[in-house]
């Protein structure tokens, strides 16, 4: 039976490159460990469950170069295993203690869950999530796409060459990790402006995703709205976010994740634990921070101390209800759209991957249930990835997308404002200097070459949009400000050493170990 429309779910997986070999425990490194244990591994498990049941599905996932390279970093992976083991030990001690009733059961639930995560990560995947996702990619279930090198907001980058380096490294990192070229790219924060399509086309990118208004405000108004892609003159397809599909998951008011039966994010056991247990299992200095173990449900609009114990069975019932509701609404939407346009519409729903599992604990179960229901029960819709939709409908409207992002307000004020605009002059000048140095040093000595490669890494890390984002939203402001300044100062310190022909090898080696992103980089890409 011919279906009436296509659902295309896109998950954007990204974290800034954070690695601190100089400290044994570094709080911000936990961002990665939380994301692996709460989102990436549960998502992998959900996709694998579907595969094992013979469910055919299509889902798209971007994996940014910083994330890919952190998932391949030995030090970080070793520390991730320690993170898991510590939680397993803590949970074992807690549920073996005198605690009774629902709380004891919840400790047992988490204990089993972490044991399972540890087993999947170490026994099944041998510590290699990239391999795991790569297998699903090769089997045609998961469409993996890349991202710009360090998640830079390309419309805020002045140097054309740097924009190109960002895309080139995104493609190169992807090829090295997954063994083939990416067909699509996730532009950091869906940020687009005129001319970026030419760079994408040059590097073999076939499609990308923009927010709704990036398509609706295109230079030739789109006949199909966001129910079909538009293509630019340089041969790149642009898919727009379908707000109807997105808001049920994103919206604070109408969204599923706010259901009172789901797990409460903000009440973590760490804040209730005695100091000796924190020191023993979580942080030797006794710092209190989220452990990932949360025993309560949202309950309602009540203070954290009034939250009721989490009921896993009830939460899973809600997952089924919400997944069914999501599918039903997409079916209605597809039928309606097919009535007003002359082709089967695509309903593209992009999300941050970390929403599923980390923020919305039951998110991976919800996705598994949606994909399962659509394959087994829907006569109206099926799942698709953007590339396959292009194969199905190769003729599309030619139009230049509008400058836009998916950030608050739809443009760039999140990254460019009074609190962050000091960053951009440095990025501009550093980029210019890197291009000049790449042209100047045609036959460097071994050490000069290593130094120039490290300067490239420091520049790229300074270009990460994450630092400006964190400063603007008021999360980890000091850390983000310090890291931005660190990369700028490291770049200039190295440049000074190069100019003075006085290279501090200790310092260089230290930076090489700490800011070890793009181990294969060659500064000549800036020529």
């Amino acid at each position, binding site marked *: 039976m011919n279906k009436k429309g296509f659902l295309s779910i896109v998950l954007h997986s990204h974290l800034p490159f954070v690695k601190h070999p*100089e400290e044994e425990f570094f709080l911000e490194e936990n961002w990665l460990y939380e994301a692996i244990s709460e989102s990436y591994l549960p998502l992998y498990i959900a996709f694998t469950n579907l595969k094992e049941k013979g469910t055919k599905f299509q889902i798209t996932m971007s994996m940014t170069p910083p994330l890919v390279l952190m998932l391949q970093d030995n030090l970080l992976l070793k520390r991730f295993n320690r993170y898991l083991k510590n939680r397993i030990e803590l949970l074992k001690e807690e549920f073996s203690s005198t605690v009774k009733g629902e709380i004891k059961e919840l400790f047992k639930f988490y204990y089993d869950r972490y044991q399972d995560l540890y087993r999947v990560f170490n026994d099944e995947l041998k510590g290699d999530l990239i391999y795991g996702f790569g297998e699903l990619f090769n089997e045609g279930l998961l469409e993996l796409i890349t991202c710009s090198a360090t998640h830079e907001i390309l*419309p805020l980058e002045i140097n054309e060459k740097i924009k190109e380096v960002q895309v080139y490294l995104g493609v190169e990192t992807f090829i090295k990790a997954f063994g083939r070229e990416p067909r699509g790219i996730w532009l950091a924060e869906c940020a687009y402006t005129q001319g970026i399509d030419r760079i994408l086309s040059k590097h073999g990118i076939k499609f990308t995703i923009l927010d*709704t*208004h990036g398509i*609706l*405000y*295109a*230079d*030739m*108004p*789109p*006949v199909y*709205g966001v129910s079909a892609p538009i*293509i630019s003159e340089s*041969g790149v397809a642009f898919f727009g976010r379908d707000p*109807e599909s*997105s*808001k049920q998951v*994103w*919206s*604070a008011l109408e969204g599923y*994740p*706010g259901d009172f039966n789901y797990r409460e*994010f903000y009440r973590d056991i760490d804040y209730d634990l005695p100091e000796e247990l924190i020191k023993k299992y979580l942080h030797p200095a006794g710092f209190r921070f989220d452990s990932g173990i949360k025993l309560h449900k949202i309950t309602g609009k009540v203070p954290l101390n009034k939250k009721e114990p989490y009921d896993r069975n009830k939460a899973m019932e809600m997952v089924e209800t919400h997944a069914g509701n999501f599918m039903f609404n997409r079916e209605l939407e597809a039928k309606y*759209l097919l009535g*007003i346009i*002359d082709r089967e519409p695509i309903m593209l729903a992009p999300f*941050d991957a970390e*929403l599923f599992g980390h*923020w*919305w604990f039951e998110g991976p179960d919800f996705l598994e249930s949606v994909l399962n229901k659509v394959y087994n029960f829907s006569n109206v819709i099926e799942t698709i990835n953007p590339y396959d939709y292009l194969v199905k409908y*190769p*003729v599309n409207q*030619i139009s230049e997308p509008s*400058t836009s992002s998916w950030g608050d307000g*739809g443009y*760039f*004020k999140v990254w*460019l404002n009074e609190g962050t*605009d000091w960053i*951009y*002059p*440095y990025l*501009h*000048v550093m980029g210019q*200097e890197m291009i000049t140095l790449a042209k100047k040093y045609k036959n460097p000595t071994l*050490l000069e070459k290593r130094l120039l*490669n490290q300067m490239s890494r420091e520049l790229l890390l300074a270009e990460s949009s994450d630092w400006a984002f964190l400063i603007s939203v008021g999360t980890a402001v000091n850390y983000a400000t310090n890291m931005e*300044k*660190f990369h*700028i*100062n*490291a770049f*200039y310190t190295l440049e000074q050493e190069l100019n003075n022909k006085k*290279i501090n*090898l*200790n*310092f260089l080696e*230290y930076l090489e170990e700490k800011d070890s992103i793009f*181990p294969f980089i060659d500064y000549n890409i800036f020529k």
Partner: protein
Amino acid sequence: MREKYEDMNKKELLQIAKVYGIKDRHKMKKEDLIKAIKKGKKPLKEIKKIEENLKGEIKKKTLQDHLELLPKEPGVVFVNWQVDTAGLETNEGELKLVGGKKEILDLPVKISEGKGYIKVEEGITVKAAIGFKKRGHFKTVISSESIVVPRGSALKKTELKWGKIDFKKRKVEKKTVTTKPTKEMEKEKKKLEKEAKKIKYIRYPKE
């Protein structure tokens, strides 16, 4: 990437030994060179101190003259500049914004440095320049790249072009298609625009 000394050849090790000022390095065997280099390394404490300094303040001024023009939001651009005025006759200058061939803004400024957010017409391509007047003519000191000012609404054009991407040639083959916009879709697009604005960039409803 950090390389192991053991994997380096003697010439490379000699370069490193030179950095550490290791005496008699040319007389040493490879193993002795490696030992001497490892001994010459600074303790971690010292490196940590360097790192702390790197997190400190950055130089107020960059090392080069620059002028940035960046898009912020519909009808708003950010302009920022820094110029070494040592060789110039004056520090009293003008900031000009040009859209196409039309001058759209002319503000008196200090040439040496400045920044600001400027309102301009949506959707146009603009370029900025800093300079000064000399004998009635504007003399450019520094200029920016062109940017497109973000647009906050849909265009009312009706032109339709269709094509198919040839992924091998990375080109678009033009096609003739009879599809035209329908009234229902135009209504739907207005609804989409309204709905899209409701989606805030949040990761989770915060307490």
